[in-house]
């Protein structure tokens, strides 16, 4: 383990497949984060009407996709 191993691993991450995997990971993280915040709002009793539940659900998906695109734009 050392510089040689680092070069090998960073080579994987810099490949198109590696970048795709990193962005997929980022999307999962952002989605989990946004949905977790949604749950925290539910914990304080906010947004329980069915209409609000649907709206926050789509908001979570939009938030995760937006942040992933922002990350993609920043990394490339």
């Amino acid at each position, binding site marked *: 383990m050392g510089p040689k191993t680092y070069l090998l691993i960073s080579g994987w991450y810099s490949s198109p497949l590696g970048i795709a995997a*990193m962005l997929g990971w980022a999307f999962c993280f952002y989605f989990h984060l946004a949905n977790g915040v949604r749950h*925290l709002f539910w914990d304080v009793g906010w947004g329980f009407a069915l209409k609000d539940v649907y709206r926050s659900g789509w908001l979570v998906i939009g938030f995760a996709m937006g942040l992933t695109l922002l990350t993609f734009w920043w990394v490339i």
Partner: protein
Amino acid sequence: METDFQVSSERMKSQKLDYHTTRQWKGQRISALSLIFLGIWFIVEVLRHAQEDYSVVLAWAGNPWIGIALASLIGMVFYHSALGLQVVVEDYVRNSNLQKILISQVKILSIIMTILSWVFIIRIAMIANE
């Protein structure tokens, strides 16, 4: 107006919601709040350093403050994920014997992973500051 939420909280009270469950509920949320900050910080740092050389990344990870942040992130991640996986097992595994075994496996694995990660953080810091 009685909402579904109030009904289920009444039901939970009647089922003797014990101290342990309350503590886990709180722990899950406290770790979630701290991971909002630690998680975003980590993802930004990883992407920022993704194209950099070994020596730059080693110097970054070897900084004591970064090490403390990484160690807290690891602790929170495995605590949060152990509690989350426990809920998944409780919700989807009917067999109570299997449920107990799986929950203890989740806990043991999380503790092992946490300690291993901490050892590696310390080792990296030692190599960086040789």
